[in-house]
C-alpha cells in the first residue's frame, strides 16, 4: 500500500480541525466546496447560453447585470484547495497525471464514467442538502447543527448501502 507518505489519520484529523478552527476564527464560517462548483457551473452555462440562464429565476440570483458569479468567497477558497492539493501532492512526490482505481483492472472510460456519474449525484445532492461533506458535515457538524449531523449520518449510511453495489470497483 502506498500510504507511507500519508499522515497518521489522527494527526491529520487534528490538523484538519485546526484549519477548520482557523476558518471559523478568521471568517466566521467553515469550509466548503460544492458551492464553488455550483458557481463555476452556472458561470460556464451563462457564458454559453446567457439568455436561458439569465432569465431563469433560480439562476438569476447568481448571474445578471452587475453580478459576477465567481465573485464569491467559496470560489477563492476552492482555488486554494486546488493549489493546496497540487503542492501537497507534489511535495509528497505524488503529483502525476493518472487515473486512480481499485486493485481490479478496469477500462479507463469505465472509471471515468463512474466518477462522472458519482459527481453528478453529489452535485444534485449537495444542492439539495445545501452543502457537501465539507460545507455541511464538517462545518455544520462542528457547530453542532442538527441538519448537518443528520446529513453526515446519511452520507455514511448511503455510502455503506451502496458500497456492495460497486464493490467490484474498489475491492
Amino acid at each position, binding site marked *: 500500500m502506498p500510504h507511507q507518505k*500519508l*499522515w497518521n*489519520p*489522527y*494527526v491529520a*484529523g*487534528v*490538523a*484538519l*480541525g485546526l*484549519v477548520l478552527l482557523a*476558518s*471559523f*476564527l*478568521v*471568517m*466566521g464560517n467553515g*469550509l466548503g466546496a*460544492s458551492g464553488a*462548483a455550483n458557481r463555476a457551473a452556472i458561470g460556464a*452555462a451563462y457564458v454559453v447560453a446567457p439568455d436561458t440562464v439569465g432569465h431563469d429565476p433560480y439562476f438569476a440570483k447568481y448571474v445578471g447585470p452587475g453580478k459576477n458569479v465567481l465573485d464569491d468567497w467559496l470560489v*477563492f*477558497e476552492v482555488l*486554494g*484547495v486546488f*493549489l*493546496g*492539493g497540487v503542492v*501537497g501532492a507534489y511535495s*509528497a512526490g*505524488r503529483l502525476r*497525471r*493518472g487515473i486512480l*482505481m481499485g486493485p481490479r483492472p478496469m477500462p479507463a472510460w469505465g472509471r471515468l464514467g463512474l466518477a*462522472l*456519474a*458519482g*459527481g*453528478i*449525484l*453529489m*452535485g*444534485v*445532492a449537495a444542492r*439539495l442538502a*445545501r452543502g*457537501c461533506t465539507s460545507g455541511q*458535515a464538517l462545518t*455544520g457538524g462542528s*457547530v*453542532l*447543527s*442538527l*441538519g448537518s449531523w*443528520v446529513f453526515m449520518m*446519511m*452520507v455514511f449510511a*448511503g455510502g*455503506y448501502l451502496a*458500497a456492495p453495489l460497486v464493490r467490484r470497483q474498489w475491492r
Partner: protein
Amino acid sequence: MIFPLYPLDAFGYEASLVAGTLLGFAFGFVLERSGFGRAPVLAAQFYFADTRVLKVMFGAIVTALLGTTILAGAGVLDYSLLTVPETFLWPQLAGGLLLGVGFIVSGYCPGTAVVAAGSGNLDGAMTVAGVMAGSLLYGFFHPWVAEFEMSGAMGVARLPDLLGVPQALLAAGVAAMAVGMFLGAEALEKLFARRRGGGPLLAPVPRNWVFIGIALASLGGLGTLALEPPAPAAAPAPRVVRIDSLTLARTLVESPDSVRLVDVREPAACEAKRIPGAMCLPADDPGGSFLADLPPTRRLVLYGAAELRALPGPAARFGGPVLVLAGGFAAFETAILTAPVAPSPVTPEALARFRLVSALHAKFTGAAAAPPPPAPAGPARVQPRGPKKGGGC
C-alpha cells in the same frame, strides 16, 4: 471579543477572498496529506479496510468543536457570529443519502475531488465536472424540487439548544463518542486486515497523544463553564453628551429626523405623559435591548424621569452618538411643557427667549398657540384657537 475577525470587520470583503484562498490552501494541503486526494483510500472506508475518513473527519470535528467551545467560553470568540448552516430536515436527509451513494460511486466527495484533480488524478477532475453538471442539472429542474427543498425547515437548529445541554458538556460527549468510534473502527480494521492477511497497523504513539489532547481539551471546555459569562460591554463606551431641554426641543422642531428620542422611564409613566415624538420602551422589552440594534442613522437621545447617571447597557452598544437629556423629563417639563412666564424686566434677550419658548411650548403642548409677545407697550393678549391635530403641526 477578537474573533471571528471578518464578521467583526477586521478586514474587508476583498481581503476575505484572499483569506479564503489561504485557508483553502491549507485545507487542500491537509486533505491531500490525509490521503483524501486518492479514491481507493477514501473508498476503503466503506469496506472497513481503512477507516481514515472516519478518523480524520471526526478528529477534525472534535478539534474544531472543542476549539470553538473553549475560545467562546473564554470570551475570545463571539459564537453568535459563526455561520451555522440552517436545518432543512428532509432534503438534508435525502441529500445525505444521495451524496453517500455518489461518494462510493465516484470515490470522492466534492471537496476531495478538487484535491484529487490538483494532484493530477483525472478521475478526480471528472468528479468535479460531474458535481458541476449535477448542480446545474439541479438548477434547471429546480421548480420540481422547490417545495421539497424547503421541507422540514427548522432554521438554525443547534443540538445544545435542542437538547438543552450546555455546549461544553455536549462537546465533551461528542469527543468521547468519537474516541469510542475510533477504537471501534480500529478493532474493525484489525478484524478485516487479519481476514485478508495482514496490513500496516498504525503506530500507537500519535494516537494516544491525540486522545490525551482530546481529553484535556474536553476538560478545558468544561472548565469554561465555571467562568463568568463574559461581559458583553467590552465595546468602547460611546461618548455620552448632554443635551439641554431647549436644544432638544429646537432639534425636534427643526430636524426631527436627526434624532431618535427614547423615553426610558417605566412604560406606564411614559404612556401617560412623555415628550411628543418620543418612543416608550415596549412592554415586552423593558430593558430596551432593541436600542443596541437601532440603525445608527440618527443620534439617540435618551431621557429618564431625572437625569440619567448611566446609560442602559443596550444603549451603550448603539452604533452612533448617544445623547442624554440634561435633567431628564422633569427638566423638559419645566422648561417647555409648562407655559413660560413673561419676563420682567423686559430686555430684548429675555423677550426673544420668552417668545421662542412660548412658540415651543405651543408646539409641544398643542393646546394653545404661542401667546403674542408681551409688547412693552401693552398687556399680553391670549388668543385661543382650536386644538391642533395629533400633536404635530
